[in-house]
């Protein structure tokens, strides 16, 4: 069934510890999906781009004798291709052997960079953005947060997902969130099943869009990217998506300064919203939001076909 959660601080600036807040909410939703956990969080924009990527699946480390050497080769190839395109790598971090974080200085065609890097076997870019950092891995929120050191992540907003795999594999590729390639700072999480996934995927692929997984949820990210590429703002793209997508869904989208939610016309998937003066928190279950409060709060369920967007 999967669990989704999001939080946006309207006035707290970059100082809110959204890493800790998202972890506490996602851990409370563990029973909705223990297979993998993912975060899309928005931190400080220092003028550089953050590129999160993986060079292998976590499971690859156990099943292949030469994977460690292959990872080294892939990283070297990434570095050489970035240099070839004039991308300056300011800072490198490696939370795991297979998942990496590069801070890069580049103002050119980011789609070209993404395509060139992803052309390397086994390499997938998880996100590129000025403030977006997309982290996803197998296990519950406590495991992923500990693995990637997320408890001290300060920022303005974020969305997250706990996954119960139903439509595709249990791996990082199929975990949420999905980055809306090639748009900087746009990410999606989804709870539900889309029944017109393959039809719409093929149509979008014919238009040149890339899909990195066989997970139906990725369709939402690609569709939002396609609509925004045609000039829609986030809210318009989301409103169009309610008609475009067939099936049952509640999904969250985050951009550099917005967080939006959309619900299908049958209102088949849950969402609970807390709307305060300083902060909006939303999750599949109120029990997750209550992890942020030690007192009674007023919450509500959005209605069928409803789209809401908040800004920080």
């Amino acid at each position, binding site marked *: 069934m999967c669990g989704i959660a999001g939080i946006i601080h309207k006035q707290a600036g970059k100082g809110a510890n959204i890493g800790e807040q998202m972890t506490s909410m996602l851990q409370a939703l563990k029973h909705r999906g223990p297979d993998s956990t993912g975060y899309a969080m928005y931190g400080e924009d220092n003028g550089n781009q953050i590129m999160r990527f993986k060079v292998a699946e976590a499971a690859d480390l156990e099943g292949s004798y030469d994977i460690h050497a292959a990872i080294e080769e892939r990283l070297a190839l990434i570095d050489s291709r970035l240099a070839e395109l004039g991308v300056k790598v300011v800072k490198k971090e490696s939370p795991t052997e297979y998942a990496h974080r590069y801070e890069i200085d580049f103002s050119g065609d980011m789609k070209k960079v993404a395509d060139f890097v992803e052309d390397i076997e086994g390499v997938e870019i998880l996100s590129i953005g000025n403030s977006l950092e997309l982290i996803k891995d197998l296990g519950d929120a406590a495991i992923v947060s500990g693995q990637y050191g997320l408890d001290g992540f300060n920022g303005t907003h974020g969305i997250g997902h706990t996954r119960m795999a139903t439509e595709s594999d249990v791996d990082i590729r199929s975990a949420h969130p999905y980055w809306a390639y090639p748009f900087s700072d746009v990410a999606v999480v989804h709870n539900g099943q889309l029944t017109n996934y393959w039809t719409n995927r093929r149509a979008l692929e014919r238009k040149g869009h890339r899909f990195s997984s066989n997970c139906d949820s990725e369709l939402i990210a690609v569709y939002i990217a396609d609509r925004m590429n045609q000039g829609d703002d986030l809210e318009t793209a989301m409103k169009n998506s309610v008609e475009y997508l067939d099936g049952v869904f509640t999904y969250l989208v985050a951009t550099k300064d917005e967080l939006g939610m959309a619900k299908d016309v049958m209102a088949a998937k*849950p969402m609970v919203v807390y709307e305060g003066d300083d902060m909006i928190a939303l999750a599949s279950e109120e029990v997750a*939001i209550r992890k942020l409060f030690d007192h009674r709060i007023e919450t509500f369920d959005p209605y069928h076909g409803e789209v809401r967007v908040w800004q920080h």
Partner: protein
Amino acid sequence: MATLKEDKSHEMGLHEEQLKGRTQQRFFSVDENENLTYFHSFDVDTSKSGTIDALEMTPREINGEIRALMEKGIGNITVDNPMSRHGVGVGILNRLNLTFSDSLGYFGCGLIDGPNVHIKGRVGWSCAENMMAGTVVIDGNAGSTFGAAIRGGDLVCKGSVGARTGIDQKGGTIIVGGKTGAFSGFMMQRGRMIICGDAGMNLGDSMYDGTIYVGGEVEELGVDCVPGEMTELDVRYLTSKLDLYGMKAPKGVEKMQKYVSGKQLWNYDNLEPSEKKLVL
């Protein structure tokens, strides 16, 4: 037992099938006293009170503690800090005054038969599912499938509720102070639903009995749901029912619209009212 009318449904063998099977008449005969009390129901004293601090408790522990207090004969129980946990306050089969000082999660107060419950907050999906008797009053909002398949009692939400309110309702009364979402009253079979505010699309879709009253706008009626004629009896009923819970219809009960089933089910509609109880 009521004398059954000879008609086409008799010819089809429907009644014989019901009466020869394990019917309610057999289980709940007034001559068999042991069938009138449930296993795990308790004789409580409402002059005795107890409090549970649920802050660090699991749902199973909360429900166990409620049962332990009932076993001691305590008839007024307050649960503090339920923290929106799921499946709390369920399966209570005797009279009891139960108060939750905060919100509940999914499936709160389901499968109950008799207690008077007050929730000083919000409830998640499927509150009071399959409720048989008693009252559940929620001060805040409620999630979807509110009162799914309830068979009796009063289920009251003073705020707004989500989609599919009263889905498969088989009796009792659901009262909503605000608005309801899509497909409210879906496959409703008996009972009454009072919506003081607006109702979402497909209201009463596929209902085949029961009555829905709406005080605000209806986005769209579902298949088989048609407007009914408001009578003086309806007005008196609505007035007394809303007064009971300190609620008001924003435009007055006289302005409320009544909706009923417009569908004729061959087997069902040929039955006498007393016979319909055997079918459902």
